[in-house]
């Protein structure tokens, strides 16, 4: 069971966060910061969130899905994930504004891998990172443009997002994950 500590931050309801992210993205589009954006989710959590946002934003192009397994920098230590759902980018990304979606921004290594993979498909005009949760602990100079909730967690704590329906999130301490 999850151990609740007095200083454990509370996760805001996902529905509220999603509505807020949707509004922020719609605002960025309305202000011309993003032009006819293409939305790309990172497997698996990012895809669930992207699917919901994609529908609400009524984007013209189909949703893209990235599986960054082949681009991870921890292949040496954890090996290949057994089920590798392939990446799918249904349209050419050259010159496009891309909204890259993930569930949690933590070390930044997943986003690094996703950026490398995107550039093997083409040269986007802009990549706009959108995450449901942003927490401390960055190991790379990577920042998100649209964030649902920002949290300070200790290193033993992790945010677990489950989905796709219902989309839920909880904070677990590392002992719980084994």
């Amino acid at each position, binding site marked *: 069971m999850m151990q609740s500590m007095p200083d454990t931050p509370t996760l805001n309801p996902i529905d509220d966060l999603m509505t807020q992210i949707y509004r922020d993205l719609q605002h960025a589009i309305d202000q011309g910061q993003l032009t006819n954006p293409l939305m790309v989710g990172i497997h698996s959590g990012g895809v669930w969130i992207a699917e919901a946002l994609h529908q609400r934003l009524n984007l013209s192009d189909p949703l893209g899905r990235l*599986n960054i*397994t*082949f*681009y991870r920098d921890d*292949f*040496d*230590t954890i*090996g*290949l994930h*057994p*089920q*590798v*759902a*392939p*990446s*799918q980018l249904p349209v050419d990304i050259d010159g496009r504004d891309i909204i890259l979606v993930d569930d949690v921004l933590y070390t930044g290594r997943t986003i690094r891998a996703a950026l*490398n*993979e995107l550039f*093997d*498909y*083409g040269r986007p005009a802009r990549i706009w990172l959108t995450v449901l949760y942003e927490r401390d602990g960055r190991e790379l100079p990577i920042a998100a443009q649209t964030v649902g909730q920002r949290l300070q967690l200790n290193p033993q704590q992790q945010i677990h997002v489950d989905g796709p329906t219902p989309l839920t999130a909880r904070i677990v301490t590392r002992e719980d994950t084994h």
Partner: protein
Amino acid sequence: MAVNFVRPIIPKLAKDPWAIQFDSQGHLKHLLTIEGLGPTWITRILDTAEGFMSVTDREIKKVPLLRGRTVVNLFFESSTRTRTTFELAAKRLSADVLNINLSTSATTKGESLLDTLRNIEAMQADMFVVRHDQSGAAHFIARHVAPHVSVLNAGDGWHAHPTQALLDAFTIRRIKGDFAPLRIAIVGDVRHSRVARSQIHAFNSLNVGELRVIGPRTLIPNDIEPLGVRVFHDMRTGLKDVDVIIMLRLQRERMESGLLPTEQEFYRLYGLTEEKLGWAKPDAIVMHPGPANRGVEIESRVADGPQSVILEQVSNGIGVRMAVMALCMSASTE
């Protein structure tokens, strides 16, 4: 000369001869034969290959997974197609590739196989892809390489050609889906075919509905039925209701050794013509591990026809070999 088809030379070496394929954690380290993999590992390889197939559809057909690793193609027997697809697979994983053709190199100068191995190991190789005309050569090398090196069998004698069987299973799965309702027929020189041996083990592991072999008595091993294979000597009955036809390459030396009368006679009885193809299911697919002898085991119009998936097999071979390389190398880093 005669090789026992069910149990070749290698199992005598150890109680559990296939255990060498796995590391202490039970992770695939060497791919030497289909035996011992079981449905779990075979399916895992096919699923991983599916992921890699998407890489080959992109503009930049490369992922950085094996960057900084060195793959050495050790070919003691020549093969353009197999070597090329292994090379391409390694390059698409960003590995460095060294091709060493030993049939014309050191061994003819009297250098022993182990000396050759030590020398290539000293070049910091991480993986050997081995083709050899002696059954068991890849096992021998796997037992003697440095602990961090993975060995892939790219065909040894009459024994095994596991990546060919895996790419065939992958091709069938992509087109037909589930293996359980399928009837698969392997046609031709089954006795001398490492491809057929590996296919039989793979298809049995994957629970193929019915597995058949078709060929003249001289080219079908006597001890093959215990492997769960139905034997036919006649194409018309053998191909009836079949979903997948796999034609094997007929080696010319079989005629010389008196196992077959003439190429023309073989073609008349077992060559896959449009007429004989009509005896199988209307949506049957035709496969061949290549290179095909047109007019000996297969008619050109069939090899190039709408039911042929021979070129898909070649493309799929790259994805499957990428999967095997990545899976074996991810274990070798412990």
